[in-house]
């Protein structure tokens, strides 16, 4: 069985948490005791209404305020597929938590309140979805019950969103009208939306092709840890432990160790102690090379026929996630997979305007939730791929050296 990781996004109160609650409820994935607990908590319990958003809004502060603050992860499966859901907050001040949830998603459901149409936060989350290169997007036009299930309302929102999708270059966009509260078009197709010809949300999630999200053509292996038992029996054992983030490795393959550029061949591949002839992403393995070379954590072993870029100056699209501003000239640690180097943000080229989606003149600093284009210089060379081409080796985080907090997400160009 395969796995689909998806996120719900969109503006405050568009119904993201309710939608997930409804998906879990209607697919019978909620346990009795959990249901009883949210029934007790629901405000309108006397009218027999249960607030399905309480299923994911698990923090005390969230329940008190009726909003989502941080991502909640939920799990369910159908006979077709296993799902990992990230329920993101809609509030602008918690955008970085949405980024966290979105970064691993294969698919994003962007909710739109049918009464309000496309709003600023819809665009902001769409920008993030596009920056993170999430392969599939479902635009869920929600609360159709509040607009009499009107096809015109739906059509107008589709036209509006299509403009956003076009200017962001979003591919694979699917539109579904629904009511999370009442369950229309969630698991079963709804009679009230008979004019809509596509599948229900769950049906779509079960069928959408996701294998294409793993790159199997460029072989990349960041070394995490070197296994050297140094016992008598295993005196010469030296295994490079890590996860293949993309591509396929075969015994005998010519490889290059970057950033040093040293050549060797794969002598053996182990998975959990067993030797195998080949291995592929996203397997965790141990690689052995023909030659005894100095390799340590942070180095990347790539297939020599599929070279990686190596540079000390990176053009990045950057999502700033800290309350302190990003000041050009400041130094940060840059971490890409297991490699950490010191770096400095050289200059900001432009800032993306969330409303017009246009490139605005460069500000002197970037502040929380800004999306900017910038140049970063690193203290030593970084082996990388362009994020758009190879997500698994093109994303880096910036860490504040003094607070140790993750402050930026970089999509290397």
């Amino acid at each position, binding site marked *: *069985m*395969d*796995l689909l990781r998806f996120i719900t996004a969109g503006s405050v109160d568009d119904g993201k948490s309710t939608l997930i609650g409804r998906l879990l409820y209607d697919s019978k994935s909620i*346990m*009795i*005791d*959990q249901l009883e*607990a949210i029934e007790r908590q629901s405000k309108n319990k006397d009218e027999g209404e249960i607030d399905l958003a309480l299923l*994911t809004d*698990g*923090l*005390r*502060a969230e*329940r008190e305020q009726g909003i989502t*603050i*941080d991502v*909640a*992860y*939920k*799990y369910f499966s159908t006979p077709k597929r*296993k799902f*990992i859901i990230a329920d993101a907050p809609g509030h602008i001040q918690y955008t*970085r*938590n949405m*980024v*966290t949830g979105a*970064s*691993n998603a294969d698919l994003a459901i962007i909710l739109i309140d049918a009464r309000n149409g496309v709003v600023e936060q819809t665009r902001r989350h769409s920008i993030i979805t596009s920056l993170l290169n999430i392969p599939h997007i479902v635009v869920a036009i929600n609360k159709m019950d509040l607009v009499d299930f009107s096809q015109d309302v739906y059509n107008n929102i589709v036209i509006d969103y299509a403009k956003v999708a076009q200017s962001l270059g979003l591919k694979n966009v699917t539109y579904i009208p629904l009511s999370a509260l009442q369950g229309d078009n969630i698991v079963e197709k709804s009679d009230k939306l008979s004019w809509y010809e596509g599948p229900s949300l769950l049906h779509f999630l079960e069928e959408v092709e996701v*294998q294409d999200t793993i790159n*199997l053509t460029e072989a990349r292996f960041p070394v*995490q*840890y070197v*296994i*050297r*038992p140094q016992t008598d029996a*295993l005196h010469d*054992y030296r*295994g490079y*432990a*890590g*996860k293949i*983030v993309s591509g396929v490795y075969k015994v005998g393959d010519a490889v290059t160790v970057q950033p040093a550029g040293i050549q060797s061949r794969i002598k053996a591949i182990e998975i*959990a*102690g067993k030797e195998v002839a080949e291995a*592929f*992403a996203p*397997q*965790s393995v141990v690689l052995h090379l023909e030659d005894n070379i100095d390799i340590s*954590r942070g180095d990347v072993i790539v297939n020599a026929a599929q070279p990686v870029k190596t540079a000390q100056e990176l053009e990045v699209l950057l999502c700033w996630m800290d309350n302190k501003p990003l000041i050009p000239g400041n130094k940060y*640690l840059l*971490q890409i*997979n*297991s490699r950490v180097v010191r770096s400095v943000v050289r200059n900001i080229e432009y800032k993306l305007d969330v409303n017009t989606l246009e490139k605005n003149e460069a500000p002197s600093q970037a502040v929380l939730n800004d999306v900017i284009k910038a140049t970063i210089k690193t203290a030593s060379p970084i082996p990388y791929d362009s994020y758009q081409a190879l*997500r698994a080796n093109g*994303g*880096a*985080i910036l*860490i504040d050296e003094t607070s*140790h907090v*993750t402050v930026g997400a970089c999509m290397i160009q």
Partner: protein
Amino acid sequence: MSAYRLDYLDQLESEAIHILREVAGQFERPALLFSGGKDSITLVHLALKAFRPGKFPFPLVHIDTGHNFKEALDCRDQLAATLGEKLIVRNVGDTIKAKQLTEPKGKFASRNALQTYTLLDTIEEFKFDACIGGARRDEEKARAKERIFSVRDEFGQWDPKLQRPELWNTYNGRIHKGENVRVFPISNWTELDVWNYIRREKIELPSIYFSHDREVIEHEGQLVAVSEFIQLEASDKVLTKKVRYRTVGDMTCTAAVESKASNIDDIISEITATKTSERGETRIDDKVSEAAMEDRKKNGYF
């Protein structure tokens, strides 16, 4: 192409191994918190896959409340011995004496909350900078919110409103002196995933996970084992029932499930069909308040 497709259980396994190796690569003094329950036994199995033929880059650490099931303790000692890995045990009873803590009273007086003191002392004693745990996000609504690398301040506290962003599979384990990181490699596994994995990998579990005869009393619909740690009342009826455990915690706060399932296939069928969640069915301590888990975590609990 289709030859290069990974089943979901293999994907989860690989993700967990990757996380364990990140701990090894990023921290100087990590530890694996080991209780003898199925989740931590699964973690140990994953660590074998991550680090053999090398040794574990961390000791196994057990915070022993003194109220554990004997079967779980035996399994713990036996596993550590067969693997030849270091096991550190610290007792909550010792902390209670040394710090003159007040033992909770009552029928099911549980040391669960006091465990946090011993855990924090142990972290300080060995200067652990990372503690790996077997918590899963599907267990509880506060856990559903937690990062894989979860930073705790010097008092062990979790601040759910100020979690670090955590992007892709890039984990930032940088901390200030005195802080530590709790790491959860099987965050994305469900209860059923763990059982399916145990079946597939033929992992050995303590016998209490399988159906056996046990003396129990009924308490608010739950079956609690008769032991020296709970106080029987005159009205309690001691019954002998065929039970198994779905989770293994303290004898005072873990309830048994009536079941004839004596092998793993039967257990998986029962869990697939069940209508009650793991903690809901077996934990007496979660019922205290709506946010019981969140509050305990804020105080340094796992």
